[in-house]
């Protein structure tokens, strides 16, 4: 237990150092940093205008009202923002592998997957999380829940958000591990983004059975935003809580194994 606490503290410290470095790197160009924050907020506002425009023509989207759909989108934005701000979709991997600096990561007495994940974080994306929370509160207070329902549902919602965060991390790691073998990763980057982006809409839009199986089970996108939103709006369902935990655990395990396996095929590019 002591060893675990010691390691946990050490890893947290490393994470904090990387976070501080990323912030300092960003602040070296402070106007650029401000523009990045502005860009994040503008992008989110345009996405919200898109939803608003759609709902000016329809009353519900696959059974979701405007405010309910807004909860789904806000949930996606929270997860997306957290992913950018805490592990940046492991976007540093390609640079390390191409430049040969991945070797430096491998020889350090810290887990390489952890170092790779925290090597780059995007501090400006906390603005994404904050904007998403504002949108979330706006939609949430229009749901008309009682104080008890509100606290209860919110509690379970946070549990789902944590599971969703790990599912997104695992999907990213699974795809990014392929980079170790193929080196060039611009397409894998686009694939990761397009897969995760799919969760910004309620997965009920996939009305064909095959599509639903693909986006709910094989790639558990439903558990990123749709299921947490359902829990928040309609209350907890213990079967979904169970599935969410299981999926997060399975995906974490598989992605870890996949990463370790990919490492065996790593051919250093450095001299």
């Amino acid at each position: 237990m002591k060893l675990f606490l010691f390691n946990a503290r050490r890893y947290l410290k490393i994470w904090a150092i990387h976070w501080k470095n990323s912030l300092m790197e960003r602040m070296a160009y402070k106007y650029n940093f401000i523009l990045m924050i502005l860009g994040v907020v503008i992008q989110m506002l345009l996405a919200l205008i898109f939803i608003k425009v759609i709902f000016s023509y329809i009353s519900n989207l696959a059974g979701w009202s405007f405010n309910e759909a807004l909860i789904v989108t806000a949930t996606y934005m929270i997860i997306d923002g957290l992913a950018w701000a805490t592990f940046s979709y492991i976007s540093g991997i390609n640079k390390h592998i191409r430049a040969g600096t991945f070797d430096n990561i491998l020889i350090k007495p810290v887990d390489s997957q952890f170092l790779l994940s925290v090597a780059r974080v995007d501090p400006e994306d906390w603005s994404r999380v904050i904007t998403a929370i504002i949108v979330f509160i706006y939609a949430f207070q229009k749901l008309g829940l009682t104080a008890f329902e509100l606290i209860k549902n919110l509690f379970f919602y946070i549990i789902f958000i944590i599971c969703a965060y790990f599912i997104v991390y695992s999907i990213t790691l699974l795809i990014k591990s392929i980079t170790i073998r193929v080196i060039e990763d611009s397409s894998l980057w686009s694939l990761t983004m397009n897969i995760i982006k799919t969760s910004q809409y309620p997965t009920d839009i996939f009305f064909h059975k095959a599509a639903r199986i693909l986006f709910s089970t094989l790639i558990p996108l439903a558990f990123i935003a749709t299921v947490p939103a359902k829990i928040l709006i309609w209350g907890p369902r213990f079967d979904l809580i169970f599935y969410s935990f299981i999926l997060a655990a399975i995906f974490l395990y598989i992605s870890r194994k996949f990463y370790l396996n990919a490492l065996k095929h790593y051919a250093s590019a450095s001299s």
Partner: protein
Amino acid sequence: MAYRFNAFVFLFSELLSLVVVIYLWLSIYKQGNTIAGYSLRALIIYYIFAKFITLTIKSLDQARIIGDQIRHGELNGNLLKPINYLFEKFFSSLGQISFRIIIYIIIALFVYLLGFDIFSSAPAFIYFILSFILAIIINFLIYYIIGVSVFYFGYIVGFNFIMMGIISFFSGNLIPLDILPSWLYGFARYLPFQYIDFIPISIATGRLPIENISRILFIGLIWAVILYIFSFFIYKIGVKKYEAFSV
């Protein structure tokens, strides 16, 4: 072909995003409405065109490449050559675009075989080609301006990021502009971005009356000239501020 895997995954990824958009609109149209005069079929064709334009001309990341080149001092070599920097960049991107057009026309043919009449008429096809050339020029000039603004800002990642979001929305890539509320559509019509997606697609699908197209394309041409003049001066003034720090 050195990166076959990369090309295949990229195509798969873009097709996936197209499928998601189609599912979204299928769900919307399940309620039986028509949206701003668009049938479901018309909207699907719109997004196929938008994807074609994204894949061929919008995904080149020209601003970042130009910005990095100037920031890292790699412009020095270009300054010594008797070559216009803007034209060098334009024709270099045109080479990539030509290759992509060949690849994605094969996909367009597949869509055609599925039973989608892509073009509304023969004149629409000819006007589309003209508007597509204009889209290539306007898109390039906008991102060129963003790229060379590195002379003034020092680092343009943030500026480029903002502009990518704005351009994606106001070009009509995310949603057809005439679906937007009238005040927003009215605003978008005063911007050059509509010539990248909305105008070429509207021409191809017959949303714009044939008799108006010449006038619309002429306005687009004026936009291209304005952007060219602006890019000329922004580079000329910027290069005087340029401090080449590489070896």
